[in-house]
């Protein structure tokens, strides 16, 4: 069993985005939201957001995979894959 359900992961990540990027506070984000063309998060903000996500969920996403994250759902996939199983 994972420490977070998919719904919890999504909710926490969207909250992080809303807090971290004031311009997106009112944006409606879904797992299908495309990082570049829907959210317009610049490259450095995205790096910092991934870093925040990593420290929040205590996972590490290899840097070579960062460029391949197109949607919010793909970011959640990468986090979910790395969450440790808990009993």
């Amino acid at each position, binding site marked *: 069993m994972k420490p977070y359900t998919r719904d919890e992961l999504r909710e926490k990540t969207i909250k992080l985005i809303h807090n971290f990027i004031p311009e997106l506070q009112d944006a409606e984000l879904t797992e299908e939201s*495309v990082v*570049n*063309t829907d959210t*317009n998060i*610049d*490259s*450095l*903000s*995205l*790096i*910092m957001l991934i*870093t925040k996500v*990593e*420290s929040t969920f*205590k*996972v*590490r996403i290899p*840097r*070579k995979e*960062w*460029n*391949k994250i*197109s949607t919010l759902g793909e970011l959640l996939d990468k986090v979910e894959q790395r969450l440790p199983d808990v009993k």
Partner: protein
Amino acid sequence: MRRFYSFSELIQDFDTRNSAAFVYAEETVEDNVEDSSLQELSYRDLAAMIRERADAVRAVGTAVDVVPVTNSVEAVVRIFGDVIAGCDVVMADPMIPEEVTAKVAAGARAARGMRLAADPDQASAEGEVLFFTSGTTSRSKVVRLTSRSLCASAWSGQSMLACGPEDRLLSILPLAHVFGFVCALLWGLAYGATVCLGRGVRHLIDDAEFFQPTIIPAVPSIMAALVRFDALNPECRVALIGAAPCTPAVTAALRARGIAVYLGYGLTETSSGVAITQDLDEPEAMYVCPGTEIRVEEDGEVSITSECMMAGYLGQPPVGPGYRFYTGDLGGFDDKGRLRLQGRKKDVLLMPDGTKIYCPEYEEDLARISGQTDLAVASRNGRAVLIAGQGSDPAALRQAVNEYNNSLMRSQQIYDIIIADGPLPRTVTGKLKRYELGELS
């Protein structure tokens, strides 16, 4: 002010110093900076490590070394050790695919063979340092620099903006790029500063608080983020910004914090900076560094001759003494003889993190993927956007952009798609009129 002409001379000078060359710490995932413990390496110990590396390279006879360049003691020792042992170094950004660096290494070995055949005395010379001009695109060139041109660049920079043993220089720029290598490493080491090796991209914002540097070299996008997140430490006295234009809002915010802002202009081909701010009230007006002559051609293009000039591009004939490099940048001199840049002439977009986008390459690739033909790539607010002529299929473009973005560094990705009200402006021969694209959005 001492001038060095080779890395060997510089390393010898390290033996005379008592201060720390580097402070560094491990990268952590946690936000808590207390988790990282600070370590120090003296100049003397650094010199010893470099010599040990050089001896090992000589013993094996390595001709070309592909170095995955990180901001680490190990990478720096390997680069300097290789070069003084006569080995050519390919500066490989860890994000560049291995097949690309392998191809460059093969080219470097062939070029080295031809160089030694033409002049056997070169066998005892220091190795060359090979830099990619930009990003990971298939058309990026590899520039051959020598320890002499790199040391000349550090010296000319020091002539305009001095650092010394009392300074802590923050090294968060990628050292695989020449701006980072010269301004966030070599300049500091040459003139006795302590270089604070950044803990990696996850700590871009908190490294200033952690290391408390007095000088921060950065590209505009990083400097803007440091300002935005109020992450500049009170000890910071100088911000050295280069590789791309910086917005007046960022320079004003830095100056409001009492930080002197220096904007630098240079290229990989010129071993980094050739002009820099001197009048702090007008940072965008730059003075030409010693050893460099800059001319503005009739069409406004900036051209350069410099003692920091490259030896040539890999796989192309070497450039000779007095070689004039045509930059593709537009500029002019003001009434005080200061260089003011005005934009780009060529089909290249310069992004805020210093990377470049070669527009025709993007347009060809996106046309192939999407099946749409009337396309142009342009810059809006520092980000690349795709502009398509009226009648283009938005869904096909969107799918193509998402697919294409996956192959690109984040800062080089397309951020928006704009459908124009008519066909894109072209000449009678079909060539895009890029200067008219600005009016379409």
